[in-house]
């Protein structure tokens, strides 16, 4: 039916594709991996150029989302108004929760974490089912594999791979993502895994008797030496608890703090905090800015090897010296979420 040349070419293309699949499945180093990195580097550079060209369009924000948002905005505001009225009466209880969330938000941006900022320049197609984005900062900016990635709201993901000037970030909502999480203010730990849906995570608690409630905040438990996840980063809040206390597994539905559909400037945590994450969850009134700032305890940068007691002490003294009046605000947070 077709000429010999056509048939050979078609066979070559199919065999080449399948060879790539096999080589990719096999993984590891070698000339194939090197060639692949070179091409990815080049394409990453071109993507930076293209992203600049398209920045007037993408910079205006996600137009579809914002249109849809506006339609629902009136309903949301009306509902908010009613909610606020009723909240006035139960203000005291909510105040503590707001303060806790506020504190968590601040933790992401204050000097506890050193981070390199990067702007999202490319997003994986939805039909690939992989929640990955590319940012315009890479190895040359000090980014390495398995660093935590955050935005102003909380944990976004981790660095999957890097090229010279770009990094690929796999988001926490990706199906393959699993993050060690802890319920803020308690010792309950578990695994937060992605569901493939952009506003839903699944939190599986290790202790089946754990007391988790809707509205509880989940923060990262922290990995060894802060890779891939630095401790104390806010992940999301519990919106639904599945199963009752005492069942074999206890699973909660968690909504991530970071809006995965509206990612713009992300921060890659290049240096996790030194002290226990528990301490960094406490609100520090002095550091409200979300601009990347160097660690306030600049003098103790080299104290990574110091004993836990010493770091706790330094953290305690710095807290006290920086914001003595915040201690009163911090008390209800701790007692409000036992």
């Amino acid at each position: 039916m077709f000429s010999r040349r056509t048939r050979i070419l078609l066979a070559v293309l199919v065999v080449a594709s399948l060879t790539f699949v096999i080589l990719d499945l096999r993984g590891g180093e070698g000339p194939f991996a090197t060639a692949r990195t070179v091409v990815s580097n080049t394409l990453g550079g071109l993507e930076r150029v293209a992203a600049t060209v398209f920045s007037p369009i993408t910079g205006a924000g996600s137009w579809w989302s914002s249109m849809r948002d506006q339609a629902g905005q009136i309903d949301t505001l009306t509902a908010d108004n009613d909610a606020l009225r009723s909240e006035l009466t139960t203000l005291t209880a909510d105040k503590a929760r707001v303060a806790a969330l506020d504190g968590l938000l601040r933790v992401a941006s204050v000097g506890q974490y050193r981070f390199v900022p990067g702007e999202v320049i490319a997003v994986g197609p939805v039909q690939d089912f992989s929640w990955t984005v590319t940012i315009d900062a890479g190895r040359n900016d000090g980014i390495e594999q398995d660093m935590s990635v955050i935005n102003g709201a909380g944990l976004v993901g981790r660095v999957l791979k890097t090229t010279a000037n770009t990094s690929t970030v796999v988001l926490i909502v990706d199906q393959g993502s699993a993050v060690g999480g802890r319920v803020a203010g308690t010792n309950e730990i578990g695994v937060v895994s992605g569901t493939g849906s952009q506003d839903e995570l699944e939190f599986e608690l290790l202790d089946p008797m754990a007391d988790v409630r809707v509205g509880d905040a989940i923060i990262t438990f922290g990995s060894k030496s802060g890779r891939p996840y630095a401790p104390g980063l806010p992940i999301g809040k519990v919106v639904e608890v599945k199963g009752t206390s005492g069942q074999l597994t206890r699973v909660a539905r968690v909504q991530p703090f970071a809006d995965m559909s509206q990612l713009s400037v992300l921060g890659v945590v290049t240096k996790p905090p030194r002290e226990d994450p528990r301490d960094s969850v406490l609100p520090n009134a002095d550091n409200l800015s979300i601009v990347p700032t160097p660690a306030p305890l600049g003098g103790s940068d080299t104290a990574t090897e110091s004993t836990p007691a010493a770091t706790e002490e330094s953290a305690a003294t710095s807290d006290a010296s920086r914001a003595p009046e915040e201690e009163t605000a911090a008390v209800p947070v701790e007692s409000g979420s036992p």
Partner: protein
Amino acid sequence: MIWRQALIVGTFSLLAVLIEVTLLSRLGIPGATPDLVVVTVVAIALAMGPVQGAVAGFTAGVLLDLAPPGDTLLGVNAVVYVAIGFIAGIAVDPRDRTVPIMMGMTGLATGAAVLLTSGLDTMLGSDRVDWEQVPMLALTSAVYGVILAPGLILLVASVVRKATPEVLVT
């Protein structure tokens, strides 16, 4: 002349990949990301023929997998797009092609691309594919394919007519 054809195929594939990941996937359009890459492969197959379509499919598929943030298995998109490029080139006799037929072919191609890559990924052991979402993604992808088709088919055909008129399929 073969170099000129290669240049057309390569340039269109590269531009399609770049526009898809840096622009289209960031617009937050509901459903699937408009599959500009597949539409481009179909447009090349319609303008230049099945062999060029298959080559375009291979090139574009490999580039899409290699371009950050691509994290799927390298080669899966390539093998699917090779098939799509080749079949699009031979499916309908050039004399019977009308604009609605070509738009329909593109829609079928973009829809099939979602189904085939999802199927192949699953067969190769990826647990990422959420089959509950696949039908909706395939449908929206097909709709976006139909919408993108006329403009891109005309663009590719006019470039081919100017640069390499000898391969133009009329």
